[in-house]
Every structure is written in structure tokens, then in C-alpha cells.
């Protein structure tokens, strides 16, 4: 080999030996050409007669994601024992470009061709690659086990206290609720969230909202548990058991924008691909933080963005299904496991206005088997068709019950929290169409033939709330003659408070006193200005509140089982209902029960007005425990608790033995109170002794300086000694005057 130097250049290209470079940058030819081929597995096995048809079907499926080359689908066949040639159940599909092949893999892997055939789509090159893998198993290096913190540690608090989060000014803080002394701060961080905070439905995570996305925090150390990149996220919704998370942003997803935000070198953290481009709603796995699927915003038929309500996706109670509706046209149910449309198509429901899942999985009392999940929706009157409420079973899509309604202005769906009944609050026109009134149509959803009870009111029910207790179907409504909502300002504060009444109803089975089973009116409180109702999560107690008005701030604490003896005597169940206490919270905007039903917090939020901000803690009896005034207070949310694991029997047992438990607990409270007092006292003693020492020093200094000053001619004015003097004042009072003539 001749060494080339500057003086000895090769005469022609052929003289140069490129073999080393060729070896280094060798380009295997076949790889280049087969990148655009995918292997499709798990397709039906057919004979020659049907082969052509199957190819056509596959073509149709793959066409959506790229151009399949002419004769690009190749299906190997073999001749079976019967002598007929059959396909082997897989095929090769050749696309124009490698990109198209990738898109097909990303979108069609797992695609359901029919009930028993889900396509398995893989790159042909993968097959090549996997055949080259060493047959001997090599164990990957073991990752050190990292213990995760207990996400429910707060439940094991020795005093059974509840936590709440407060967002005020720029500070987000978590507190232990205390009654005897101010709430104990657990953690507080400045600028922890940029918009608001939210607990997950079982309380495991605290969710903070940022421009870049969301972060979940939790455990005893309040560590960052998961991060979800979704720029300008505005709304969050968890699935009922916290497995999934849905986020919604006003900004359509752009892969480039997210890459830019993450910075160079961090592109691998970008959860989005080209297929997510332009979407606004994302469904995530809350545990791992991975993106499951993104959805485009809902569009109306003319292509405009539909205005929707949140949550856009509603979860079935088992978390198996999630559904969203396209106003006026259809309902799309997705399977959570695969994030695929149930049966591959949306349910056409022309005119659909609203839908709602039954919130709880209902079990058959005899077999103890879970009953199929159910959702309800309603459609308005259209031409000659009446308005209609429909109960549909999922996933079978069978219609369980429908009911036609007439003269309907609007309807709202209220499921009982335990799922056994659905109340449809129907606003109806009177015959003259001049005024409106309300019908309550109550479907006992899981009873045979789904009986419907109808309560026809004379006026309009503007609010409805079920008592969240499984055993009885009891509810309260606010009703008024004038259903037009009062004028509110931009932040939802009404300038007037409308006169309203509150009524209680309960379902009563046939009995001695009850001739006809059905819903009975228990009691009505008239001439109230109530705008909101909130049952205690334990039932029995309810608060009637006048929220978000400029003039009235009343809170009525009602016990629905206060005077049971009076009810028994009179035979009227409503006589047991009584207002325990009436409170007032100036500027009250929100109200929230703690998850145990022991306390209530009323809030005056700076999101709504500029009056006095802060919150008041009440107990369920309506006694004010303490009031906290916080500048620029925004929100307070109790940390939810998971459902109790105790059986009903166990609960009854505890209730029976409550006296013996409570004695112990009372003592515990007492001890804690004393300890806190002692701490406060020692703190005060320290402060006072510091003050006194300081004063003594100052006094000594002043005395010596005064002496000095007086000697050098400083004179203080002579003031009369400030001893008190007593002024005697003689007051004469004529008690009696008598004139007597003395002879």
C-alpha cells in the first residue's frame, strides 16, 4: 500500500482505497427496503374463497394511516390436511414509506377487527431483530428497591383528625383540623400552585396546577409523586378510584411547543406524538404518569368548538368505562383498559342534552353479583316527539327504561349517591306556557321494572340534594315561585336574595301509617332565602345556606331526626325535623362538610368578592368553633377519605358501644388540651420575663441619664402630685313629704 502525502497524491479516484470507510459505514441494503413493511398478526384464518374479501377489509383498515402499495398485502397460505389452502392468520403489509408504517403500528396495534380478532401490528424489522437475540437469558441488573411512602398515612392519625388544604395569597398549606386550638400546620409552600389545588377523590394525592401541567403530591413527606405535562391545563378530573386522570387545556397540544418547554436533550420526556397534535383533553394513568390517550375538543356539527361542561368525560363507578357526549348528537363510551370506543362506534342520541352515570356499582342482594353499570340521559321535545329520559345499561347498550315527558323546559339528572335511584328534576311549562313548575320523576333504577314515582310541585325546584345514605331515600329541595335566577355579577355574586322554601321528602314503604308506598312530603320551611343545600356526608344533618349574595349570609343547621319522640307521637315523620341553630358568615361564598360529617367550613373567597376573606369552622350542631380571617383567601378543601372498610354490622356495633369509646376519647381530648395550654403558658411566661428584663434595663438606664440631665440643668415642669382626691358630693333626695297640722 502506497502512503499518500501532499507530494504524492493519487492520480485517480480508483487509486484510493476506501475499504476501511466502507466497512465502518456499511448500510445493510435490505433494512432500507423493509422499514415500510409491517406484520399483521391475529387475523382470521380463511380459505381461498374468502381471501380476496379479507384483503379488501385489511386494505380499508390500513388505508386510513397510509398508502398501501399495489399488491402490498401478502398473506401466506398453507395447504391443510383437508387439501384446501388456508391462510396462516397473518399478513405482510407494505406501505409507501416507513413513516406510514410507523403510523399504522401506533394506531392499529390492538385494533379490533371483530369480536375475537384484535390485530397485532408490528414492524417487519422487529421480527428480524428479535430473531437475532441471544437464546441464553441474561438477567438484567437488579434495580435497588425503593420504598414508596404510604400514601394513606394521614388516615392513621392517632386523634382521627382530618386534613384540609388552604390556598390563600400565594401560599398553599395543609392543616390538621383542630377544635380546641387553631389548626395545626402540616406543610406550607409558597407558590406551590399557580391556579388552584385539588385533592384526588380518595384523598391520596394533592394536585397542583402549573403552566406546564400538573403535579401530584402526597405521602408523609409531600414528595412529588407524578408529573403530567399538559401546557396551560385548566381543568382536572380523577376517575372514582384515582386510577385515571383527565386533564383539559385551552391550548391545543403541540409537540414542538412541549419540546421547547422541556429544553434540548429532554425530548424523551415529551409524552406526545404527532397524533396528539391539536388535541386538548388527555387521559392519563395517575399512578405511572403515562399518557393513555388524547382527545380532540368536541366540535358541533358546523365545526365550531362546542361549549361543554366539566367533567367532559364521566367515569362509570367501576372505572371500566368513560363517556363523553357531543351535545345534541351522540354519546361516546370508551373502555378504560384500551381507551378504545366501545363497539367501535358512538351511540347516536339525537338531541342529547345531558347524561349521568349511576355513581355506584349496585350489587344484587341475593346473588351478591355486581349489576351492570347504568347511565341516564335525556332528550328534549322535537317536533312531534316527546322529551324522553332513558336509562341505558353498559356495556350491553340495552335500554333499561324510558319515560316520555311533555311540556318540558329543561331537566336535570340527580343520581342517589348510592345508586339506587335517579331523580329527574323536570322544569315544565304550564298549559298556558306563561309560567313554569317542576316535576320530580324518581326512577328506582335497580328495582324490578324500574318503577317511577312522580312528585308534581306547584312551584319550581331550583336545587335538589339526596341524603347520601344507603338505607333511606330522602332528599331536600329548594323551591320558589320565581325560577328566574337573580342577577349576578361577573364573579357570581347575586345582588338580591330570592325568597325560597325548603322541603324534605322521603320514600316510605307500605306500613301501618303509610297506605300507599311512595315519596311523602315530610316538612317545609317557608320564607327562607336559601340558595344552597348540603347534606352531611353521614346523612341526618343538613345545612341550608344563603351563599353568594350581597345582602344575606344565613346558615341554618338542620337535624332531620332531632325530635324522634314528637314524630312517633304525632305519626308525622316531618315533626322530627328541626333547625338546631342559625348562624351567619358575612360574605359567605362556599360551604363544605368535612368527610366525617363532624364539622362544616364556610368560606368567603377572594375569587368571588373583595369583602372580608377567610373561613369559619362550625360543628354539625351549628356552633361556631373558630373564625379565621385570611387576606386573599381563595379556597379550602377537606382531604377526602376513602370509603369505610367496616361492614354495616361492625358500624352498628360501634354505635352501640359509643359510650365506652367516647369516654376514652374525651379523656384524650382533655389531655391534649392541657398539653397545649401548658405550652402556651410557658411561651407566655417566657415572653413576659423577656419584657420585664428589658424594662428593668431601660428603667435603670433612664434613672442614671435623668440624674445626669438634672445635674446639667434640665428641669422637668412641676406637676401637682397625681394622687387621687375624693370629692364629696352630697345628694339630697326627698323620699316623702308629709304635711301634718299640729295643734
Amino acid at each position: 500500500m502506497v502512503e499518500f502525502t501532499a507530494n504524492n497524491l493519487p492520480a485517480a479516484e480508483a487509486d484510493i482505497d476506501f475499504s476501511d470507510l466502507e466497512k465502518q459505514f456499511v448500510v445493510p441494503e435490505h433494512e432500507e427496503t423493509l422499514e415500510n413493511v409491517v406484520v399483521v398478526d391475529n387475523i382470521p384464518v380463511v380459505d381461498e374463497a374468502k381471501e380476496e374479501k379479507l384483503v379488501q377489509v385489511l386494505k380499508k383498515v390500513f388505508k386510513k394511516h397510509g398508502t398501501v402499495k399495489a399488491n402490498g398485502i401478502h398473506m401466506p397460505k398453507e395447504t391443510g390436511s383437508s387439501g384446501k389452502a388456508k391462510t396462516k392468520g397473518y399478513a405482510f403489509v407494505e406501505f409507501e414509506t416507513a413513516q406510514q408504517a410507523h403510523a399504522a403500528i401506533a394506531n392499529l396495534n390492538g385494533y379490533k377487527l371483530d369480536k375475537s380478532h384484535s390485530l397485532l401490528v408490528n414492524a417487519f424489522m422487529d421480527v428480524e431483530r428479535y430473531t437475532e437475540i441471544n437464546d441464553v437469558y441474561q438477567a438484567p441488573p437488579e434495580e435497588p428497591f425503593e420504598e414508596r411512602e404510604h400514601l394513606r398515612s394521614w388516615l392513621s392519625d392517632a386523634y382521627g383528625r382530618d386534613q384540609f388544604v388552604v390556598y390563600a395569597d400565594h401560599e398553599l398549606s395543609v392543616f390538621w383540623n383542630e377544635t380546641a386550638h387553631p389548626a395545626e400546620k402540616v406543610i406550607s409552600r409558597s407558590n406551590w400552585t399557580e391556579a388552584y389545588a385539588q385533592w384526588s377523590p380518595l384523598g391520596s394525592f394533592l394536585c397542583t396546577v402549573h403552566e406546564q401541567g400538573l403535579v401530584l403530591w402526597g405521602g408523609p413527606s409531600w414528595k412529588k409523586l407524578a408529573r403530567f405535562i399538559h401546557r396551560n391545563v385548566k381543568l382536572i378530573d380523577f376517575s372514582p378510584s384515582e386510577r385515571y386522570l383527565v386533564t383539559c387545556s385551552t391550548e391545543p397540544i403541540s409537540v414542538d411547543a412541549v419540546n421547547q418547554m422541556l429544553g434540548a436533550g429532554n425530548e424523551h420526556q415529551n409524552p406526545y406524538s404527532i397524533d396528539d397534535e391539536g388535541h386538548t383533553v388527555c387521559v392519563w394513568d395517575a399512578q405511572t404518569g403515562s399518557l393513555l390517550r388524547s382527545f380532540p375538543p368536541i366540535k358541533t356539527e358546523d365545526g365550531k368548538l362546542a361549549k361543554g361542561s366539566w367533567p367532559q368525560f364521566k367515569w362509570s363507578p367501576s372505572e371500566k368505562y368513560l363517556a363523553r357526549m357531543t351535545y345534541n348528537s351522540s354519546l361516546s363510551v370508551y373502555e378504560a383498559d384500551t381507551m378504545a370506543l366501545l363497539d367501535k362506534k358512538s351511540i347516536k342520541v339525537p338531541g342529547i342534552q345531558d347524561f349521568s352515570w349511576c355513581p355506584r356499582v349496585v350489587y344484587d342482594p341475593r346473588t351478591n353479583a355486581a349489576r351492570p353499570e347504568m347511565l341516564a340521559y335525556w332528550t328534549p321535545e322535537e317536533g312531534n316527539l316527546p322529551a324522553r329520559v332513558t336509562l341505558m345499561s353498559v356495556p350491553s347498550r340495552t335500554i333499561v327504561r324510558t319515560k316520555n315527558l311533555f311540556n318540558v323546559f329543561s331537566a336535570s339528572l340527580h343520581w342517589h349517591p348510592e345508586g339506587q335511584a335517579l331523580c329527574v328534576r323536570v322544569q315544565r311549562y304550564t298549559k298556558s306556557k306563561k309560567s313554569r313548575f317542576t316535576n320530580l320523576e324518581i326512577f328506582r333504577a335497580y328495582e324490578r321494572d324500574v318503577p317511577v314515582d312522580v312528585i308534581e310541585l306547584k312551584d319550581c325546584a331550583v336545587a335538589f340534594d339526596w341524603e347520601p345514605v344507603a338505607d333511606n331515600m330522602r332528599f331536600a329541595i329548594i323551591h320558589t315561585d320565581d325560577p328566574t335566577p337573580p342577577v349576578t355579577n361577573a364573579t357570581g355574586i347575586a345582588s338580591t336574595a330570592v325568597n325560597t322554601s325548603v322541603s324534605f321528602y322521603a320514600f316510605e314503604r307500605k306500613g301501618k301509617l303509610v297506605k300507599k308506598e311512595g315519596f311523602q312530603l315530610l316538612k317545609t320551611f317557608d320564607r327562607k332565602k336559601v340558595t344552597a343545600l348540603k347534606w352531611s356526608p353521614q346523612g341526618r344533618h343538613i345545612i341550608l345556606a344563603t351563599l353568594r349574595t350581597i345582602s344575606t349570609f344565613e346558615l341554618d343547621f338542620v337535624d332531620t331526626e332531632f325530635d324522634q319522640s314528637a314524630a312517633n307521637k304525632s305519626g308525622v315523620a316531618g315533626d322530627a325535623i328541626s333547625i338546631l341553630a342559625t348562624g351567619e358568615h358575612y360574605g359567605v361564598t362556599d360551604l363544605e362538610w368535612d368527610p366525617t360529617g363532624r364539622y362544616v367550613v364556610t368560606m368567603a373567597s377572594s375569587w368571588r368578592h373583595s369583602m372580608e376573606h377567610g373561613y369559619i369552622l362550625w360543628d354539625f350542631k351549628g356552633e361556631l368553633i373558630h373564625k379565621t380571617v385570611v387576606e386573599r383567601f381563595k379556597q379550602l378543601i377537606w382531604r377526602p377519605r376513602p370509603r369505610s372498610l367496616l361492614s354495616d354490622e361492625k358500624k352498628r356495633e360501634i354505635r352501640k358501644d359509643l359510650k365506652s369509646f367516647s369516654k376514652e376519647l374525651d379523656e384524650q381530648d382533655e389531655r391534649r388540651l392541657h398539653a397545649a395550654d401548658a405550652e402556651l403558658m410557658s411561651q407566655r411566661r417566657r415572653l413576659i420575663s423577656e419584657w420585664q428584663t428589658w424594662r428593668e434595663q431601660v428603667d435603670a438606664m433612664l434613672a442614671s441619664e435623668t440624674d445626669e440631665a438634672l445635674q446639667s440643668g434640665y428641669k422637668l415642669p412641676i406637676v401637682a402630685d397625681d394622687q387621687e382626691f375624693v370629692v364629696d358630693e352630697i345628694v339630697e333626695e326627698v323620699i316623702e313629704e308629709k304635711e301634718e297640722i299640729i295643734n
Partner: protein
Amino acid sequence: MGHTRPLTQVKYNVDGDLLMTVAKDKTVNLWYSHNGERIGTYEGHQGSVWSVDCNKTSTLIVTGAADNTARLWHAETGRMLHTWELPTAVKRVEFSRDDRHILMVTEERMGHKCGIYIFAIDISTPEQSNEPVVILRSSSAKFTAAAWGYLDKYIVASHENGSLTLFDWANEEVLRHAPAVHEGVITDLQMWKDGSYFITSSKDKTARLFETTTLDPIKMYKADTGINTAAMTPTQDLVILGGGQDSSEVTTTSSRQGKFESRFYHKVFEDEVGRVKGHFGPINTIAVAPDGKSFASGGEDGYVRVHHYDPDYFTFQYDY
């Protein structure tokens, strides 16, 4: 007849039997403090009267007003003894501890710088010198209030930007400047009886105690509204704060909403211990009787309210 316009200052004499009140209605009133009977009115000012003080023997009264004058009155007869003409309105007047000087804080206006003018007083003659002994100038924002420190060695002045200055007035020297100790305008400054520490109130919703010689903060009292005035009670360890939403900020007519109460705090523990209601507008000024048995508050509503404490106030002991 009391006052027809918002009160600007109320003050007790040293003996505590007399109460002087001044208001924006140009009048200066003198009252018996124990029953609220009016003794008389000092008439002559042509503008809002901002401040009042009397000497230790209660023979002379000095007032400062928006008519750019400060006037000296014979307390008993109401005769005007002397008028000082100053370049701008007089916001605060105070006799020195030895009654031989008066400090006058003037407003910054119409091109005139604010200043603290100190005039010598000769009790023997009604004629007073028109020539100030010293004029102290601000190195920071304008003065809002000033008070004499112990033995008349010092003058402490507060500024609109929330800072404080300690002057060796005789030598016209700034001894110390504490910038931005409050986050808002300092509205009032009242000395403890021996002049070793003082309380300031501010629109930043707090009142604070400071040591005179070092200007070190000692205590802070937090309220939920702007504070216009703060006073210390001489016998109990309490401070009284007065304030309330400015009338321009009041959105509703509810008096509760305006926070027009006198608030009591424990001086050492900084805890709020109670409130006294009564005014229909913000409280502009509070003074505590020297015997500690009553206090007077003057409000934007034109009322002066004299509160005599209930007996349990004196027996109340804070647990520690």
C-alpha cells in the same frame, strides 16, 4: 355642640381630667373627661385643625391646623396668646417633656419641603418667638408624625413611606434611620409615658412597638384593616388600635363590614383580646386617660366616644 366633621386628634391633659379634641371643622373643644361635659371652644383657626397638645400644668394649649398656623391658647380663658405662621399646614404639635419647646410637623406642599419646626416657649409671657430654634428636614419621604423621646434628648419622626428617623434635635443630627419598618403610611406615633419606646400604626394593617434609641422593633400587632391610630394603656399591658376601611373603599353601608371597632391587644403577647364597637366610620384617633381608667376615640363620623372600663377590666388577668 361637638364636632361636625371628622375628628383628627383627641388628647388628655396630664391629670386626665380634661379632654381636648380637634377636628376638620376648625374647632378645638375642651371637655370634662369624666362626664363629657363641654367646657369651651377655642375659636380662631381658619382650616381643619390637625393636632392639639397642652402643657404639663394644663395652662397652655397649642394647636396646629391646615390654615398654615399653629396657635397658643390660654387654657382657662380660651384667649389666643400667639399665632405662628408656617409655610404649610401643621400636622402635629407636641410640648416637650420640660414644656420649654414645642415641635410642629409641617406638611409638604406647594413647593415647600416638610419639616419639624421647634419653637422655644416662654411661659412667663404671652409673647413668643416666631423664630424656630431648629428646623429638622426629612432625608426620606415626608413626615407624618413626631414625638419627643425621653429627657427631650431625641425626636422620633415617622414617614409616609413607612420609615422612622431618630433625631438628636439640638444638634440637628440624624442619629438613626430605619427604612420601611412598615409596609404602608405610618398614621400615628405615640410615646410611652417615660419616652423609652413608642407605638406606631400604619395602613399596612399593623401597629408596632419600637425602642426609641435603637429604633429596634419590639412587638407587632396584626389587624385585618388599615390602622389609623394606636395607643398604649398606662396601667394594663394593653394597646388599643383604631382604624377601618377608608370611606372610599367601603362597598356596603354595613358598619360591621367597615371594621370600625377599637381593638385591644396584649402588649407583650401580641394577641387580640377584645373589641369595642361604637363608631359608624373609621376611627382616626385614640387617647387613653393617664390613670388608665378610660379611653377616648374620635372617628371619621364626627363623634368622640369616651369609654370607661367595666370593673372586670381591672381585675382581668391574662393567664401566664
